[in-house]
């Protein structure tokens, strides 16, 4: 059973149809790269998965369970959405770290707040917080920031900030981790370290959806590539199929630019 199944998602902004019947599925432990020209709807797709936009049609299933159904959207409560959202993690293009918290606090904040609703929170508060903290430290170490945990975002380089953002998203143990052009806001020298972290996540079989313009990286790291154009999936397949032997004219035209 695929961990993520997207079924004919549609999304319009006003009169503009930005996503036209998007459907795909993703197996556990695989990573999916989404490529396509600017304005083709890649960001919007990720935002739909993360409930930042509400699709006008279609369904989203995680582990076979429906987490979104456009037909039944009214019956979803705010709390339910919040719950379903936790299946997904999202790493933003421009990091969106919380500036008033240290790297470590950025990673622990959401977990600490979630832990409050645990039944035994009051009793074993200290132990719970300690555990959250230890796990966060482990995560930061795994993205190579053991010595930067107590720095505030503005004291970190762009690449370091993006790595904190990745650790923050991982902390909630999402089933699917999404990246929206994670290196496009970085200086060329700093992209390497972030791509390295994502590559190591792929090697440890993290399920990921990665929107990227780094074609070489997409080919390297992904198990499957989707090429989007004008709100549609034009071509999908293994990196070799899509990048080395594209079938559609549009894909060829797009790839020729690189």
């Amino acid at each position, binding site marked *: 059973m695929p961990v993520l199944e997207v079924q004919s998602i549609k999304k319009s902004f006003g009169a503009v149809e930005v996503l036209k019947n998007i459907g795909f599925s993703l197996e556990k432990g695989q990573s999916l790269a989404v490529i396509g020209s600017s304005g083709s709807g890649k960001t919007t797709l990720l935002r739909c998965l*993360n*409930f*930042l936009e509400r699709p006008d049609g279609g369904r989203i299933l995680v582990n076979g369970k429906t987490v979104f159904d456009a037909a039944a959207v009214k019956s979803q409560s*705010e709390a339910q959405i*919040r*719950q379903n*959202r*936790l299946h*997904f*993690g*999202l790493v*933003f293009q*421009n990091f*969106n*770290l*919380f*500036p*008033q*918290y240290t790297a470590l606090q950025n990673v622990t*904040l*959401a977990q600490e*707040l*979630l832990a409050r609703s645990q039944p035994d929170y009051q009793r074993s508060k200290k132990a719970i917080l300690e555990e959250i903290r230890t796990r966060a430290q482990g995560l930061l170490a795994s993205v190579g920031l053991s010595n930067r945990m107590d720095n*505030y*975002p*503005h004291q970190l380089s762009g690449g370091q900030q993006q790595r904190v953002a990745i650790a*923050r*998203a991982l902390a*909630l143990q999402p089933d699917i981790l999404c990246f929206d052009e994670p290196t496009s806001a970085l200086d060329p020298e700093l992209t390497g370290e972030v791509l390295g972290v994502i590559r190591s996540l792929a090697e440890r079989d993290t399920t990921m959806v990665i929107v990227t313009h780094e074609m070489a990286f997409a080919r390297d790291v992904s198990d499957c590539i989707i090429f989007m154009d004008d709100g549609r999936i034009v071509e999908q397949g293994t990196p070799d199929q899509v990048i080395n032997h594209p079938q559609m004219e549009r894909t060829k035209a797009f790839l020729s630019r690189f």
Partner: protein
Amino acid sequence: MNAATVIFQRLSESFWLNCKLFGLTLLFSVPLGFVVAFGSMSRFKPLAWLTRTFVWAIRGTPLMLQVIIIYFAPGLLFEMTPWGSGSSGRLVACTIAFVINYACYFSEIYRGGIEAVPRGQYEAGKVLGLTKSQIFFRVTLLQLVKGILPPMGNEIITLIKDTALARIISNKEIIMMAQEYASKGLIWPLFSTAIYFLVFVGGLTLLFGWIEKKMDYFRV
């Protein structure tokens, strides 16, 4: 007790009225400003328009006029005053005029501050499963406060100077008190009032400098 001591004592007593007006105005207008700001940003358009027009009118007319109208209009229009009698009523009326006026000014500052917090901060909070109130209190509030601190500081410094307007409806604030002596030909109490204001303003300047420094540990 010599005459100068008496005069300073009376000046200090009357400056206490300025301080009370200052404190009460802050106490109420700082939170009320948020209500007004949210009103003016409401997605219910008529409310937003109404609030903005109100804010525009308040910001476009002298505070002095508002004080006079709030104090006299009820009495003249309905032959009864809600302010009660005596000097406490005057202070109440004056405070209400000040609170409304400053809430409108603050609301514009808040609005600018709220709009300046990047959307990405709200979205990052949402994606991490935080509730709306957690996002407000844990994520955006502090950034908002840091952003509005400098204009708030300016406005609050203006407030202490504006308290002198209380005299317009015969609240015996410090300048009015000093002028009583001036009408007896004694001018130095008038000059001394400047000291009270300068000390207060100086204190506020230091305070805001200190808070801004405190918040310097992060950068939005």
